[in-house]
């Protein structure tokens, strides 16, 4: 019978003699990597920082164009080039002045020029970049500024004036009998024609989707929309003036006003119409039976 061979003891430096760590570095590292990945996914996808301090360079192309238009309008008023360029630098574009030329080109190609103030805005941009020696396609797309109309040969003012005294200079007789050129006579109106409006329709309606809303339409006699008309709503201790056509989705003749409950309102066009009948947004039930507050629809048209 032979004895089992005796195993040799591991050396004293072997890890078998070291106390075991409570954590594994390898697994810790794996967990760390997974944690970082999870943290970044959370921070970038699940719960990103909220957008609260948007700067001009972060705006969409349309937003940047609107910002540039505002800068150019301000420049057209104060002619402060340094300030305009400082504002444009907020867009973080390599060449802000050429960028203005490119945006003017884009706007001139679109229907922006037909919007209120659009033509003037593009011309302000053109003036800005042309003064800095730049060019853009807007130079070709936008026709030149129309020349002032020819001067009148004779203007008869509305105010009556006495006939001039006869001249004391003798007039050669031959001139009396000869043909005389008839001067062109144009009458310049001294007062812009004023169109008076009247309320042709005032109806109360009940719709929960448009609760307590005063819808105002200003139209030509035939129903053609009239944008840019000032409309005034008055109540017992205040008034508000708004303008038609600023909500293009609702029509170019449309403007609205939110009514407070149980307050009496009248609406008119300042200087152009008499006040309407009194409107009060009281409670009502719409067609679906939902309880809401009454709204009004008012239509102004020329009174002649």
């Amino acid at each position: 019978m032979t004895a089992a061979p005796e195993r040799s003891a591991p050396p004293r430096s072997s890890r078998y003699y070291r106390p075991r760590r409570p954590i594994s570095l390898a697994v810790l590292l794996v967990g760390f990597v997974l944690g970082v990945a999870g943290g970044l996914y959370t921070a970038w996808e699940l719960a990103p920082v909220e957008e609260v301090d948007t700067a001009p360079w972060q705006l969409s192309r349309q937003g940047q164009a609107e910002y540039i238009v505002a800068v150019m309008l301000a420049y057209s008023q104060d002619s402060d080039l340094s300030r305009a360029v400082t504002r444009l630098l907020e867009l973080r574009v390599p060449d802000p002045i050429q960028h203005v030329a490119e945006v003017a080109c884009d706007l001139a190609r679109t229907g922006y020029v037909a919007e209120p103030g659009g033509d003037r805005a593009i011309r302000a941009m053109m003036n800005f970049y042309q003064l800095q020696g730049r060019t853009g396609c807007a130079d070709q797309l936008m026709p030149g500024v129309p020349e002032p109309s020819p001067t009148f040969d004779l203007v008869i003012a509305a105010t009556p004036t006495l006939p001039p005294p006869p001249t004391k200079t003798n007039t050669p007789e031959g001139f009396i009998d000869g043909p005389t050129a008839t001067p062109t006579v144009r009458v310049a109106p001294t007062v812009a024609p004023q169109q008076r409006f009247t309320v042709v329709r005032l109806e109360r309606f009940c719709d929960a989707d448009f609760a307590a809303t005063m819808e105002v339409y200003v139209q030509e006699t035939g129903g053609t929309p009239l944008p840019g008309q000032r409309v005034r709503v008055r109540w017992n201790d205040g008034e508000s003036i708004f303008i038609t056509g600023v909500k293009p989705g609702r029509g170019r003749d449309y403007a609205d006003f939110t009514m407070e409950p149980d307050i009496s309102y009248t609406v008119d066009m300042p200087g152009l119409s008499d006040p309407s009948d009194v409107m009060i947004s009281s409670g009502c039930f719409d067609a679906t039976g939902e309880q809401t507050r009454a709204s009004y629809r008012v239509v102004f048209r020329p009174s002649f």
Partner: protein
Amino acid sequence: MLRFLLSLVLGGVLGLGVGLYLGWVQFPVEFVNSPISALDPRYRDDYTVMVAQGFQADADGVGAVQRLRVLGVENVPEYVFQQAERYITNSRSPQEIQALIALSEGLGRTSPLFDPYRPVGAP
């Protein structure tokens, strides 16, 4: 097994903290293609002043209202009026205040606070 789980959880927690710090502080999401209505209040104020200066030049109230509508403002005259009053209260630039007053009054809102800022006519 306990050692494995402990290591994984500890590493995960550390990693999560580092990941959130990187994602929220060091390299946060930067928004682009934002609408102009999301502008920082400082830039909104500046934008409004610029539009008001444009109004001073062309007296185009409709154009000014349309340009301010894109800020998402419900009541443009009231918005301009309040900014004018705030600029007066904060003693901002007289030129900017005058522009805001011109636009506010052009849109039908005025205040006794505006009186000192109106241009004085020549005698």
